[in-house]
């Protein structure tokens, strides 16, 4: 028998063991972020002819700053969606973290304490989400929908429904971080760039990243392989929340004030950016570069409509249209796989 099986099998050598189903170029062409990038380039080229103010330094600066916060939140959301979960609470958390940050700094604490308070608030919200989802096994949609309501309400209670516009002794530094730039690029964009690079590394080279992708592919298999699925899930929701906490820190510094209405319906922008960037709601797919590209495309659509002189009331329509087109495109590409 063993003789027969030896002969019936091809010789296994390097041509097989080193073979790749796709070349690097093919895998790039098959990835959603690449096509989003192409769409961005096409829109930029077209718009530069439509309106010569479009490609000015000022507009590029504004546009990139505008989408950076959504991009940062979408990086965290990508991790959640990769596990086949969803986090609807990020918009409300943005408001809550912003209010906590404002209150702490208004009370005269330094920027470090303010930052810490902001991030701890986010981490606690993520922890609650994560524990309910991973250990109590509740549906992510329901848990985070509940958190959406609760976090917003807490923000209203602790802010006493008042706007905060003074930020204590470190106000100047705080407003600089959120509102200014280095080497011509907004600080928001620097943070986004660094985080995107960090996430790229995490998805490609870290064990944690590999485990998150495995959980998204087959949570049962991941569990049987000895991966601490529950703990990883909790960390994913905490990470997503902390990305939102970071975005809150930047946004409040940019606006120079905060109300408890900050970030209302922001979760929809973040989820849309994540999905446009190539995340699959069924889980198991994640690209670090997808989040910023998705966020960029959405902002570009808004900006382009503005420059093309189309009524701003149309903006949401086109953002929604692109969301549906992006998912459709992904399905067409994956057909026959």
């Amino acid at each position, binding site marked *: 028998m063993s003789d027969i*099986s030896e002969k019936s099998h091809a010789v296994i050598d390097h041509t097989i*063991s080193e073979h*790749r*189903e796709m070349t690097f170029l093919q895998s790039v062409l098959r990835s959603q972020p690449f096509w989003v990038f192409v769409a961005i380039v096409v829109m930029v080229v077209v718009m530069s002819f439509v309106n010569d103010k479009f490609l000015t330094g000022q507009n590029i600066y504004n546009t990139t700053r505008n989408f950076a916060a959504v991009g940062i939140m979408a990086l965290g959301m990508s991790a959640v969606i990769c596990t086949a979960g969803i986090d609807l609470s990020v918009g409300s958390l943005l408001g809550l973290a912003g209010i906590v940050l404002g209150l702490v700094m208004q009370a005269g604490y330094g920027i470090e304490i303010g930052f810490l308070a902001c991030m701890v608030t986010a981490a606690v919200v993520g922890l609650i989400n994560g524990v309910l989802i991973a250990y109590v096994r509740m549906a992510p949609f329901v848990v985070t929908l509940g958190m959406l309501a609760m976090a917003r309400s807490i923000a209203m209670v602790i802010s006493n429904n008042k706007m905060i516009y003074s930020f204590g002794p470190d106000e100047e530094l705080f407003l600089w971080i959120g509102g200014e730039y280095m080497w011509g690029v907004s600080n928001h964009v620097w943070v986004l760039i660094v985080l995107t690079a960090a996430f790229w590394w995490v998805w490609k080279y*870290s*064990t944690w990243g*590999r485990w998150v*992708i*495995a959980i998204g592919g087959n949570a049962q298999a*991941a569990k049987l392989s000895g991966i601490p699925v529950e703990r990883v899930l909790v960390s994913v929701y905490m990470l997503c929340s902390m990305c939102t906490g970071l975005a809150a820190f930047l946004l409040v510094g940019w606006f120079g004030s905060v109300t408890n209405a900050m970030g209302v319906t922001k979760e929809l922008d973040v989820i849309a950016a994540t999905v446009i960037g190539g995340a699959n709601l069924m889980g198991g797919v994640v690209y670090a570069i997808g989040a910023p590209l998705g966020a960029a495309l959405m902002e570009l659509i808004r900006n382009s409509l503005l420059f093309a002189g189309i009524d701003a009331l149309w903006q949401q329509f086109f953002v929604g249209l692109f969301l549906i087109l992006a998912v459709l495109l992904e399905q067409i590409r994956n057909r026959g796989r």
Partner: protein
Amino acid sequence: MSMLELSGITKSFGAIHALQGVDLTIAEGEAVGLMGDNGAGKSTLMKIIAGNFHPTEGTIRIEGRDVRFDKPIDARNNGIEIVYQDLALCDNLSAAANVFLGREAKKRLGPFTYLDHKAMYSKAAKLFAELKSETRPRDLVRQMSGGQRQAVAIARTRLSDPKLVLMDEPTAAISVRQVAEVLALIKRLKATGHAVILVSHRMPDVFDVCDRVAVLRRGNKVADKHISDTSPEEVTGLITGAIEHA
């Protein structure tokens, strides 16, 4: 001394007795076919050996030591690897990533550790070559045939050089050609000194690769015979109850 020794294994779920005092031993390099009708207690016995739950009564000994498994990872740490019926693979990861899932090869650079993709690809390639399988380490499992998926699941068990490999219906859902591949894989495991427990409904497979066959019926072991001392007809009779005991 036997590699694995189960004695007096009883498992009750409330009033239902899934297993009643089952004994089973298996030696190094030996393959035992575990057969029985649906509900005979095969899966329950498998799950006890795999560490999914405790027996109500009875002991498990590995190489003469008493062991107690609280979770599947404990069984793995004691040299027992399981190939699950659904294979427990992540479709969205490469073959190599699945082989190394949960015990990834890592490199260290200062305070950072990172995945050593190169080492994982080459080690996985070596495992597939040993199994004479044409599975490519970089391919996504999603794109693979049933036989290749089996190869991935089996290669995974070889990563730790286990003492015993437990296979649950490995040939149930694949084509005839792939069945031959999987049976060849099992023979390779035996040839390298691994004990194998094969749970299967398919009589020809069991008679092809196993040294012994154990038959369960309604939670009792009704036969445990050398393959050469029995026949498919007798085993069928034992499974259905037409033959009471052998």
